[in-house]
């Protein structure tokens, strides 16, 4: 039997507001524990929530960016459950009348565009943080209590872990483009839960689903879903049944751990939040917010392909992050060849970012320095090969390419006199190869070039070396 995977995602994004969703406390990651709290977010008796309209505006902008309908009137609801990180014993969220209704997001997987439905977006407050490093006691940090979140819910339109990954990356890109979330999964400013089920291909009805939580990296989501799809397929192939269950993803062990079954599922007893009147948004407000939207990833990708002649893959990678695309365009302002710049960013800049596990903000290399480096290749000062080394040093030392070239004496040796001596000694050291070459083994030319490059420690101009070799071996 052939199975089809069905996935839906719930993405929580922490909004970059100055203050919390229902009080005036500062909303910022990394402040000392318990420095941002007040009667409201601590849930003291008698304290009342007052809605932060800036968070509403951010949520509406996200809705506009993915084509959601924006409700003129939406409701807050209380989600009731006991947990020590939830001071009021309920979370103020939205339930059956959310701020944004249906929308959609196109994703690209294997060079094919697919449109994924979005069920809606709602606003809610985050819980606090528990710190368990002093067992058997747990400590409580109020700072995160009441920070604003939006929850973006996809339709069960995703058909593979790769599609789920593409959707998540697509949402992340838009959140970054419209600057409402910093999207750092490792810090929890972006979180993703997934629902996954299998059904035999052609079947219309959805199979029993499981939920996976706690995947704190983008690739982790894909990996967890691959794992769960395999697990479900194995169960089904062995004639078993899938039970509605929630799993926690264990990143270090690369497996999911059962958290709770349907029987233990919470009854959240949702009901309309009586402390907050219905949230009304007029069409003029939505139109004004729509106007504040910048160029979005899909439009930018099109522009990079059509106007700059980039290949689809490069355009996709570059526009997946606003900052990366900005870096690309900033470099392009100092250097003319778009494809060259794209290539250097996609290959080398991303390699540095991945190797050092840094964000683009922590990059020491500036667009201006990268442009300068590319010019130095063009005018023959350095070889492309040494440029790779220089770009690493630019990051390491936070210096411009000229300074590094000077310090490392990496200036390309194009001086024929110096190169002639080197080539001569290479030929002298390899008489057997010279004989074979002369006997007709033309491929050995690259061997000689390689030896000569090695002798110049990579700084020889390969073009010049080639020319000298052909002359001297004639």
């Amino acid at each position, binding site marked *: 039997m052939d199975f089809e995977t069905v996935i839906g995602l719930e993405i929580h994004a922490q909004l970059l507001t100055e203050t919390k969703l229902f009080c005036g406390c500062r909303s910022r990651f990394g402040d000392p524990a318990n420095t941002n709290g007040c*009667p409201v977010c601590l*849930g*003291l008796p*008698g304290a009342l929530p007052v809605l932060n309209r800036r968070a509403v505006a951010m949520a509406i902008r996200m809705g506009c960016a993915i084509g959601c309908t924006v409700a003129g009137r939406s409701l807050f609801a209380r989600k*009731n459950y006991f947990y020590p990180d939830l*001071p009021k*014993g309920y979370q103020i969220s939205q339930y059956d009348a959310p701020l944004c209704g249906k929308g959609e997001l196109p994703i690209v997987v294997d060079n094919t565009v697919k449109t994924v439905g979005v069920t809606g977006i709602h606003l809610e407050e985050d819980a606090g943080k528990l710190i368990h490093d002093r067992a058997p006691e747990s400590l409580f940090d109020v700072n995160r209590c009441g920070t604003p979140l939006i929850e973006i819910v996809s339709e069960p339109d995703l058909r593979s872990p790769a599609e789920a990954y593409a959707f998540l990356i697509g949402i992340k890109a838009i959140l970054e483009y419209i600057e409402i979330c910093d999207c750092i999964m490792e810090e929890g400013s972006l979180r993703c839960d997934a629902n996954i089920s299998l059904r035999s291909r052609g079947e219309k009805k959805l199979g029993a689903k499981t939920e996976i939580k706690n995947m704190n990296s983008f690739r982790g989501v894909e990996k967890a879903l691959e794992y769960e799809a395999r697990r479900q397929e194995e169960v089904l192939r062995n004639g078993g049944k899938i039970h509605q269950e929630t799993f926690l993803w264990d990143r270090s062990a690369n497996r999911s751990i059962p958290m709770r079954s349907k029987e233990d599922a919470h009854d959240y007893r949702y*009901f309309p939040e009586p402390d907050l009147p219905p949230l009304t948004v007029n069409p003029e407000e939505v139109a004004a917010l729509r106007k504040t939207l910048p160029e979005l990833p899909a439009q930018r990708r099109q522009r990079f392909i059509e106007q700059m002649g980039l290949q689809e893959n490069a355009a996709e990678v570059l526009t997946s992050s606003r900052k990366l695309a900005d870096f690309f365009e900033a470099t392009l302002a100092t250097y003319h060849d778009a494809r060259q710049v794209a290539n250097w960013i996609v290959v080398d800049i991303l390699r540095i970012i991945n190797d050092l596990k840094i964000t683009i903000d922590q990059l020491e290399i500036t667009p201006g320095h990268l442009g300068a480096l590319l010019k130095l290749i063009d005018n023959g000062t350095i070889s492309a090969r040494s440029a790779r080394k220089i770009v690493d040093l630019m990051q390491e030392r936070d210096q411009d390419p000229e300074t590094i070239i000077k310090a490392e004496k990496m200036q390309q040796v194009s001086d024929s006199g110096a190169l002639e001596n080197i080539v001569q000694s290479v030929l002298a050291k390899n008489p057997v190869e010279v004989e074979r070459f002369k006997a007709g083994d033309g491929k050995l030319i690259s061997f000689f070039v390689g030896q000569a490059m090695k002798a110049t420690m990579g700084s020889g101009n390969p073009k010049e070396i080639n020319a000298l070799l052909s002359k001297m071996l004639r």
Partner: protein
Amino acid sequence: MPFPFSTIDEGVQQIRSGATTCRATVEQSIETINAGDGLIHAFISVDAGRAIERAAELDALSQAEKARMPLLGMPVAVKDNICTRGQRTTCASKMLEHFVPPYDATVVESLHNAGAVIVGKTNMDEFAMGSSNETSYFGGTRNPRDVTRTPGGSSGGSAAAVAAGFVAAALGSDTGGSIRQPCGHCGVVGLTPTYGMVSRYGLVAFASSLDQIGPIVSNVRDAGRMLSVISGADARDATCAGKPFTATDDIYKNDIAGLRIGLPREYFGGGLSDEVRRPIEKLTERLRDRGAVLLEVSLPTLRYAIAAYYIMCTAEASSNLARYDGVRYGFRSPQRSLPELYRETRRQGFGAEVKRRIMLGTYVLSHGYYDAYYLKAAKVRTLIRNDFNDAFGSCDLIMSPVAPTCAFKIGEKSDDPLQMYLTDIYTVSASLAGIPGLSVPCGAAGVLPVGVQFMAPQWREDVLLKAGYAVECLGGG
């Protein structure tokens, strides 16, 4: 009234003129409390030192500053579910026995700014859940008119404090009758404002969509003055409408000629005791003599009001009281595991009535029951509101008894929650509709006062006070 004045206005004038001082007035209040509250138990806490200190501060103010303070030097009591900074706020519960709020409720700030002096926090039913003050963790309150009876509740302490002459005025809170019913039983004036007229910030929530703070005073004029102090906009309460009340002289002209007063026939049916019926019927005659137009109206949804009310309020209470979990503040039963901590803290920290309502509220919100209970009750609430709107099409205000009986004996109903709930029958409808209600003494059965309730359309407190003032001028029974 032990004070040498009969209205707040008179008292404030005496202080401004120098005939007496804030300090002397407050000291007199405290002496009366010390002498009488051992028996009445209207207060959970009295902070004499702080009150006298505050009074002295007020005395030191300039004449210009004093002139701006409509409650200058007035000793007031505040129900113990209204937060006072640095002063214990217990909600008459073991759960908050030692809770000291780090902030003032907005109404408390307003009282301070108006020159009032808070002398203490009044006794109440635990978390305002009850109609007799008998569910207080600190022991009940006695009715000053007959100490074998309850003062009603849940603002029984505030009503008793005013009735006993301990203070010039008090604040209560009303969810389904908790201001109006004890005022009726104690023979004082109580006003439940339109929902949204007074900020709830700092009022410990029982049922958020119904709770409203209001004044408890000895006369109608004082109700108007207190309301003008505590009403108005508050950026900290999203349900506060920002419509301040301003008393006009027109209200206190004792002229009700042409005022159309509706008598809902459903409110005068079975269940209404003769001791209450007689004074009210007599009152209708006297109001008609004064030129009011009395007409019969119908509020057919009354029969569903108690059921709808107890579903709505318990649902909200079950959520509002979830925060008392022993984790951050309040009573905590030391336990090893988290589930045990929750269970034991709440089992030991809450009284029986509070637990009953949390259980009921949790049940009506549960999956599979929500539509049958909560949603149905919400629909009934809309019908009740429509009923009132229809009735107000033909009359300016509606008049009814406050409660079916006079104050009942201590212990008489405390073992029968349903009987206790039924004492709210005439008051819950206005709460569900969010309209204002005024309770005014209109007679007595022996020593026991009987109260009449007026209900008006939203924001028409002026009409309520006008009618109440006319009743007051008739001189009771």
